[in-house]
């Protein structure tokens, strides 16, 4: 065991002040950071609607077989920033199902329609070679590959 520490040690005032200043600045930084985080959190509550998307998709997930790959069609183009956000939010909500672009890949039986506004969902699906199975409202549609 090392020796016990010497009991009496004095420190130059400058060094003590430096330590005190470092600590005070850090506490001030912590307070500023807390206030900023708080303000930011109030402004940006779930900016990508992850929770809302999960709630919208929940009824559809009860209808599709577990763990199958799902096709994906949407009225928000996936190659835009908004489209990517909508697609990834849907992908996160339906995982562990894999979502693949219905137009690009054929390796699926069922497809998820994820729409931002009401339209003739059956016609949109038909144009993509999909038959409407069920409309779950809120723009969530279940399609199946049209075999005809």
């Amino acid at each position, binding site marked *: 065991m090392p020796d016990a520490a010497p009991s009496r040690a*004095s420190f130059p005032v400058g060094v003590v002040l430096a330590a005190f200043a470092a600590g005070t600045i850090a506490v001030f930084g912590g307070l500023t950071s807390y206030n900023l*985080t708080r303000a930011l959190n109030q402004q940006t509550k779930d900016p990508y609607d992850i929770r809302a998307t999960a709630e919208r998709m929940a009824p559809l997930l009860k209808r599709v077989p577990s763990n199958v790959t799902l096709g994906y069609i949407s009225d928000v183009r996936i190659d835009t920033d908004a489209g990517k956000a909508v697609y990834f939010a849907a992908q996160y909500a339906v995982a562990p199902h894999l979502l693949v672009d219905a137009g690009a890949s054929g390796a699926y039986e069922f497809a998820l329609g994820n729409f931002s506004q009401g339209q003739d969902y059956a016609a949109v699906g038909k144009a993509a070679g999909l038959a409407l199975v069920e409309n779950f409202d809120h723009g969530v549609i279940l399609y199946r590959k049209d075999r005809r």
Partner: protein
Amino acid sequence: MTIVAFLLAFALGALFVRCALPEFETRPRWAGWLLELSLAAGFGMGLTGSLYFVLLWAGLARYELWFELVALAILAVIVYRLRLRRPAVEAPAGPTFSWNWLLLLMLGVCGLLYALSFYEAAANNPQGEWDAWAIWNLRAKFLAGGEATWRNAISPLLDRTHPEYPLLLSGFIARCWGIAGETTSTAPLAAAWIFPAAACGVLLGGLAILRSVSMGLVAALILLTTGSYTGQSMAQYADVPLSFYLVAALVLLGCAERFPERADFLVAAGAAAGMAAWTKNEGAAFFVLALVGCGLFLGWRTPQWLVAGAAPFLILFAVFKAGLAPRVDTVIARDGGSFVSKLVEPGRYWQVFSAMVVDIWETGFPASHPLLVFLILVIFLRFRTRVELRSIRVVALPALGMMVAYFVALLTTRDDLRWQLDTTSSRLLMQIWPGLILAGLLTLKSIEEHATIAGPARKKARSK
């Protein structure tokens, strides 16, 4: 059940650390305990996350809990047998800064503010920011689906979300979900909170052992109040877990230099560097730099111990990259012509350099900037002598080398440079930020070195 998953990971991590490291009989004793506890938290999450992925791959993931319990029993036996055989590391006691209690109080206040900020962020965005739910936690969901779906995490069809990224963090979260039987936000949130707390503990405990308690407290204060760093942890990005493994490896390299008779520290540093590579690709670059640092400054035989510690994770990383991960374009330009043309374009150097300076500036607010704290410490504590600074080269080289590696990676990116700088460079800086704080404070004389010893203690010192 999520808490059971975490406790089991910590227990495994604690026994692993006990097996890998000697006991610290340094003063104060709690510094050694804090370092061990913090390492145990991070190593436990890394070990169990890696084991889960290996078992998934082998088709045995449903037996994860049994494998962990067996590993726990084996490690417990090893610890029991090693307990009496291995000498502890000792370090002479120095003077104690009489105002440490105030620094500790301030650290407590900063810790509380960070915890409150984290709680608010978690309440508002439990799923984290973009990369958390679009990359790390998404892949955790695929892995948690078990044998039927885990390969979705590395599907080439996920090319918009980096299916080639390593899987330590996603593996750990998936493991917790698997044990808990539900995919709630608790596991990713807890991991996002524990990693920075453990990084803070490693900095505090490590610096208390390598330099002094007050320097450890100052380091922890700087880290906890770096807005960019705490913000990344609330975002649930993998950069913070990576930062833990990097700073853990650096502290252990520092210990290897301080206690050169022990190879244990190098093996543990290797394990931390290996886990860093299995967390994010940047960790592989760090491992190479640590290897070079060891060879240059600790002796040409020392890298073998580093490799020994890192081997399981590096093998996993290499096999994953070679055999499982889809071939996706790397961030760095691949074709030689494009790479060279980017290297010889002077405007890009300025663009990257200025972005990195801005990132450093934005680590804090002007009146409470970490650099301001460092400047005050430099003025009053002063740098150590050139001879003394030789002892920190093995820590400084990998830490500063990472900055150079980031610079080159950004300079030669295949993507639009402006976009890359806007979305990446501040995150990269935060990966090595705790390591930079460690290296920066190691260059200074400690507060305790300025002590004037009075009374019986001085007489005792003179009589020697």
